């Protein structure tokens, strides 16, 4: 125990002297939180929009005005042919164009069907969905209104609406991206820092020649590894508290479930990250290699874990890979507990996954780390 604490104490003293690293441990979560919280927004509003009005009727202006007040379309100009639309879309001055055909007002007044056209820049699929959905539902709603109006003019009263679906969104009713992103960020930041710092921990000693000194000492393998990761567990919890705290203050991220449960389950996740870092540490020859490995590993984590793209949308092989990542399971836990108020039994299966991954990693890294040279 003396030895284990000696290692942990030494790591902490070294960490305190290393201003840069120490600053990163605290600064990084805050910076990422602000970046992800403010910058990433998957519901696209205020798309620059052109209007090509061939009709110039009252009905046409009314329809454009209705689109504009949804907040999704910012009318940035009026054009007079398709060439102008194409140029604007290509140059990125506009993302969307609304084309109102001639006879638009006349057809409506006559009760005939008419179509307005929506031209959308499909190079970014996120825009397409937002742009078309809003316009289509607006069109449908307006059609309904016009039909009822016509029926009323003829003295008839139709059903208010024959069939409609009323969506009810639970857990994040306003669909705020920050609320979805911030809890996930806890997992991403922990993956990043825990793996990076532990992967460098053993390699650093090897590079500086101090590992050999430890290997000839009576210090045990477990004492060395546990002593080294102990301070980082504490740092992991500090980071987690920081993100959740700031997330709550700045982005009003709720906490529906039990905080102690979240902290308890986080320990398994943190342990898995640290074990992975230790495993990288046994593979890498230099700190640089360790750093590269961590980054190489981080990317699929962000892409496949469900942090940005939904798990359900991935092809089966990607889903299988995703299941092997500790972050995937921790994201479900942290989102479950903070947003949905999940209890232990709700996230039990994720815990089983995490524990299994942890077990495999610990087995792998103790097999790799030997107290012999050569």
């Amino acid at each position, binding site marked *: 125990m003396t030895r284990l604490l000696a290692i942990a104490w030494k790591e902490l003293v070294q960490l305190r002297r290393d201003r840069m690293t120490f600053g990163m441990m605290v600064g990084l979560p805050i910076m990422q939180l602000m970046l992800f919280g403010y910058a990433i927004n998957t519901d696209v509003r205020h798309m620059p929009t052109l209007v090509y009005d061939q009709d110039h009727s009252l009905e046409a202006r009314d329809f454009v005005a209705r689109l504009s007040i949804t907040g999704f379309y910012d009318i940035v100009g009026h054009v007079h042919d398709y060439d102008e639309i194409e140029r604007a879309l290509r140059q990125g001055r506009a993302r969307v164009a609304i084309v109102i055909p001639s006879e638009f007002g006349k057809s409506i007044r006559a009760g005939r069907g008419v179509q307005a056209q929506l031209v959308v820049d499909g190079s970014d699929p996120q825009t397409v969905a937002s742009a078309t959905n809003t316009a289509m539902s607006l069109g449908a709603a307006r059609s309904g209104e016009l039909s009822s109006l016509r029926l009323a003019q003829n003295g008839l009263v139709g059903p208010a609406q024959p069939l409609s679906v009323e969506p009810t969104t639970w857990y994040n009713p306003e669909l705020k991206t920050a609320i979805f992103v911030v809890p996930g960020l806890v997992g991403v930041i922990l993956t990043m820092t825990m793996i990076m710092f532990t992967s460098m921990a053993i390699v650093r000693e090897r590079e500086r020649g101090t590992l050999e000194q430890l290997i000839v000492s009576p210090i045990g393998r477990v004492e060395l590894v546990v002593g080294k990761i102990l301070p980082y567990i504490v740092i992991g919890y500090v980071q987690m508290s920081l993100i959740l705290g700031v997330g709550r203050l700045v982005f009003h991220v709720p906490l529906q479930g039990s905080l102690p449960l979240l902290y308890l389950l986080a320990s398994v996740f943190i342990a898995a990250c640290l074990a992975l870092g230790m495993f990288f540490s046994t593979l890498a020859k230099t700190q640089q290699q360790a750093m590269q490995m961590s980054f190489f590993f981080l990317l699929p984590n962000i892409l496949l874990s469900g942090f940005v793209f939904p798990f359900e949308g991935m092809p089966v092989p990607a889903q299988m890979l995703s299941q092997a990542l500790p972050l995937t399971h921790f994201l479900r836990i942290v989102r479950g507990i903070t947003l949905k108020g999940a209890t232990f039994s709700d996230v039990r299966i994720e815990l089983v996954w995490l524990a299994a991954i942890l077990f495999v990693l610990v087995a792998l890294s103790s097999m790799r780390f030997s107290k012999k040279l*050569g």
Partner: protein
Amino acid sequence: MTSEATPQPIAAEGPVIECEHLSRKFGSLWAVRDVSLRVERGQIFGVLGPNGAGKSTTIRMLCGILDPTSGRGTVVGHDIAKDSEGIKQNIGYMTQRFSLYEDLTVEENLRFYASVYGMSGRARKQRIEAVLEEAGLRDRRKQLAGTLSGGWKQRVALASSTIHRPPLLFLDEPTAGVDPVSRRDFWDQIHRISDQGTTVLVTTHYMDEAERCHRLAFIFRGELLATGTPLEVIERRNLSVLELELEDNRTLEAAKLLRTTEGVEEVNHFGLVMRVALRNSQDPEGTVRRALEPNGFAIKRLQQTRVSVEDAFVSMVREDDAMRAQKHLETAA
């Protein structure tokens, strides 16, 4: 763990290090081949050889951190292959790289290594104070190890590796790259540690340091060339070394001539003085005079001088080279 205030009593009888036919292969290369050593308690045992001779590999096997390919050995009574943890408790180890944490202070380094060897509380504190005092490090206790000069780093490294008062201390090229004054200080410290009852095994490629050891072993190309006290090693080679000064400055020609003379092994220049080594020579002075004077060289001064360990070592290496060349020719033919 209890803190050790005195060297632990180890198997009271017998040598501290004993190994037989120790060999280690890396890939297809034999780094160490058939090395047998015996180091008695309290000795300062020097292992000499050029860089890459296999000194470090030998030490690592003796510490139990590198398994020998073949051969056996016991260190402080523990088998090197089977009981390396038993060895680790009883040894100190210091390498040329001074394995200090540069971002820890002198005192923190000592404290860390003391804890690693299981010391704690008051015993640790007292021991650290004692070591700081002994090594003259008191004024520098709060200084970061990374900001110390080479000589001071070396002191701290030595203090760290002896903080637990090990009965056996391994020093692997401890003076490589350290200035001459610091090297002398360091050897004084090694003798002080030895006087306290610690056995020391030290490797070096500085031949002047070899003469400060009680016993020596020469390692060359992974093989043991000789062992014994410095005097024994020197006498066994049966060398005579002469200092020669000429009236004129045709030293290069004279050296050329001497090198082809029967019995002369080595001619070296030290400014205007030449050092001539002869092996198995009944009349070294006569040999030199007979070689030079008939050829018109006027000798100003010619006198016998002390044979050094370096002379003996160079002589052995030359012989080994010659034998290998011979063997190579035979196999080629």
